């Protein structure tokens, strides 16, 4: 009898089935490096038919499998167990169709987010969702994770831009969701909606139909530097209260500013500022002019130390360089980075930041903050040395408390990074057993045998609030009342 690896090789050829330990090293984790595990094998299909053939084989042999895009996920979503096969979709990178009349594109899942925009730029179009990793992350991964980005305050998340998909279900059958005219057929359930953000546990999208947006006539990017974080947050509140919806409202704290300015992502941010607020406005020129004047007035009212406006595309790129490179700049601070992803109501941002600082002090961890202020989506980043178990335990404990704080303030444990394996122990903060049972039933319809990306999103029954996957030391760091 042929081994599974031999069967896979028969389907794809030897060059597209990786099994040696060295070759598998690159697939042992995603951007969440706390959880690492080398998969049994990695396969590299190039078409829907090949994905279906591989999945049919794996389903038939009861082998778990994990779809993967670029591996930029920050929650361990595509990290596979040692018994699982990774189905890497990076070779499926064709833009299959572009409609300028109806403004949509059909793409394979391995198309890089920014490459799609590059492919339609000459048509005056772009793809709006823009995760910070957009130069490498894939549309398939974005669809699986319902990715966001700085510009989703105005333009929405990935789910607002996916019109449909061709999907290989976990039993190898193929189904089409949605239509270029809309993500839900008028007499059917919204399968596109429930699939988006299912973190690779419902199947594998092999063609994705996405909406394209017309480029705006004018874009203005403003930077406000403030002496206090509160002043930056108040400016955001003023802008929103005035009825404006800027394309982006981003804040970096002082520690982040200093890390950025000391790195290759240097953007000329004032290193003495306690916070930098980036505001991007887009739309018709006359409208953007009016809005820019109002934003400048709000910055002045709140005592901005400096207000700068990009004069051209080059300057705009420079101002964004620091924000987009912020996570990379953290590499200067320590060997590892834990990027958190909590959400609070926008009106409670200041309260949340005070609480996060207190948690950082309590656990003696190096905390920096970069966040989507318009959405209330916080990214507290903890730089640490992952080789030190005691330090790692304190970092995870601080993360646990920060997410608890977000939930207590009426928010969420994840705005855009997903649950993956990272937050399995936090899901119970938001959902009780009945909520999770309903979700499990829905997953069971798509993935009845649980072979597709097992152990993600939903905790094992009865373990939702327990930090079972963490090092035992974390439990020692957390006080008993924090185990809620």
């Amino acid at each position, binding site marked *: 009898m042929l081994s599974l690896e031999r069967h896979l090789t028969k389907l794809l050829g030897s060059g597209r089935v990786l099994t040696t330990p060295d070759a598998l090293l690159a697939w042992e984790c995603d951007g969440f490096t706390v959880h690492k595990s080398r998969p049994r094998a990695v396969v590299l299909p190039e078409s829907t038919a090949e994905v279906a053939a591989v999945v049919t084989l794996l389903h038939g042999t009861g082998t778990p499998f994990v779809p993967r895009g670029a591996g930029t996920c920050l929650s361990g979503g595509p990290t596979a167990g040692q018994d699982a096969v990774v189905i890497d979709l990076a070779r499926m990178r064709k833009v299959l169709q572009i409609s300028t009349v*109806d*403004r949509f594109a059909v793409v394979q899942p391995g198309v890089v987010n920014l490459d799609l925009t590059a492919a339609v730029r000459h048509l005056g179009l772009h793809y709006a969702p823009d995760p910070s990793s957009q130069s490498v992350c894939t549309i398939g991964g974005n669809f699986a994770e319902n990715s*966001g980005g700085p510009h989703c305050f105005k333009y929405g998340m990935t*789910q607002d831009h996916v019109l449909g998909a061709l999907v290989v*279900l976990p039993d190898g059958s*193929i*189904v*089409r*969701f949605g*239509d*270029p005219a809309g993500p*839900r*057929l*008028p*007499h*059917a*359930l*919204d*399968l596109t*909606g*429930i699939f988006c*953000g*299912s973190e690779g546990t419902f199947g594998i999208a092999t063609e994705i139909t996405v*909406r394209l*947006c*017309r*480029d*705006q*006539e004018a874009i203005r990017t403003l930077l406000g530097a403030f002496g206090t974080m509160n002043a930056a947050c108040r400016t955001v*509140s003023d802008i929103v209260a005035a*009825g404006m*919806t800027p394309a982006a409202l981003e804040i970096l704290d002082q520690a982040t500013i200093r890390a950025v300015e000391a790195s290759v992502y240097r953007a000329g941010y004032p290193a003495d500022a306690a916070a930098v607020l980036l505001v991007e406005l887009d*739309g*018709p020129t*006359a*409208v953007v002019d*009016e809005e820019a004047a109002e934003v400048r007035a709000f910055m002045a009212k709140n005592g901005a130390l400096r207000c700068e406006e990009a004069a051209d595309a080059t300057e705009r790129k420079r101002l964004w360089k620091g924000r987009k490179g912020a996570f990379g700049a953290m590499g200067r601070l320590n060997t590892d980075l834990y990027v958190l992803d909590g*959400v*609070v*109501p926008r*009106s409670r941002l200041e309260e949340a930041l005070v609480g996060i600082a207190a948690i950082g002090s309590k656990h003696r961890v190096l905390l920096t903050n970069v966040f989507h202020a318009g959405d*209330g989506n916080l990214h507290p980043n903890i730089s640490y040395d992952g080789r030190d178990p005691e330090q790692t335990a304190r970092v995870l404990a601080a993360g646990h408390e920060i997410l608890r704080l977000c939930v207590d303030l009426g*928010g*969420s444990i*994840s705005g*855009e*990074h997903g*649950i993956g394996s990272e937050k399995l122990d936090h*899901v119970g903060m*938001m959902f*009780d057993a*009945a*909520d999770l*049972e*309903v*979700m499990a*039933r*829905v997953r*069971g*319809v798509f993935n009845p045998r649980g072979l597709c990306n097992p152990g993600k999103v939903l905790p094992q029954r009865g373990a939702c609030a327990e930090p079972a996957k963490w090092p035992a030391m974390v439990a020692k760091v957390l006080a008993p009342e924090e185990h809620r």
Partner: protein
Amino acid sequence: MTTTTGVATPRSAAELSTLLGQRPGRVRLVGSGSRQARLPAPPMALHMALDGIAAIERLDAADRTCSVDCGVRREVLDAELDARGLELPCPGGGTLGGLFASDPIGAASPGGPCPRSLLLGIEAVLADGTRFRSGARVVKNVAGFDVHKLLVGSAGRLFAATRLHLRLAPAPRASQWFERRGIDHDEALTLLAALRARAVPPDRVQCERTPDGAFVVRGRFAGRASFVAASLREHGLTAGAAAWCDHLQPPTNGEVVAGMATLGSLPGLLALLPPGSPFLWHGGGRCEITMPDAAATDVLLAAMTAHRLHGHLVHAVPERRGLGTPVPPAHRRLDEGLRNALDPHGILV
């Protein structure tokens, strides 16, 4: 809680949960009863009127979100939002629960907000009385599976959403309706294409073919006053009174098909229609077509299938409701699987 023969009117999610937990047999969830598209209920089904669960729990202007019970009527919420300079930026009336469960119109403009994009989370009750939550109250959340997205268009067959957490938008500083009447097919499509090509299209746009065969394009520009005025000028449009039409008037004898079509596929769809059939297309892609009789509808549905267009009957005699272009078998299998998973005894009808 009020229970009369065949109708129960719970006043809270807890009461609804208790009622459903008593296994009352088949149950038809009803909002304000304004929807026409539903399959006929079995004669012995208990009608569960949800318009008594009707509190506005919170309106958070700073966060542009609200939490409302399923029985809150659209005009009641709109009045509250208007007072705070906010709006729920999608068309449609009746109760909020009914609007989201039926999703009859979708978006009012290309890529515009629609019930599925505005729904942040729910509190809900399964057919067996189990209460659960999905999503969150904040504008951004990816925790857990988005079970709440299944509410949209589910027609009350999966669960009863008793509270909805919704995203809101600021009311525009200025807005102006426009309407161009009495134009022909080509002129209408040209105007729609020009409006569609804008970086900022009208926040509402629709096209109607009236029984005399003439076309009407109407909509609304919203934003800053200077933008609104410039947009009207650019397209040679004149300001007019609000004239939005949610639905075609149901015919006395004929039928109404609801479907979806992109702007690019509109000419093909129009070519399939009997001359003079009233037709309404919303900018988000949904459309309605009035058909003179069942035979003509059957011909149309067959032609739509051949052209890979989707539609189904929303106004017809009871025995024909539910007819439509085929849903792909694998899609249908998943739909049925979800119904069985969430309501295994088929209580919600």
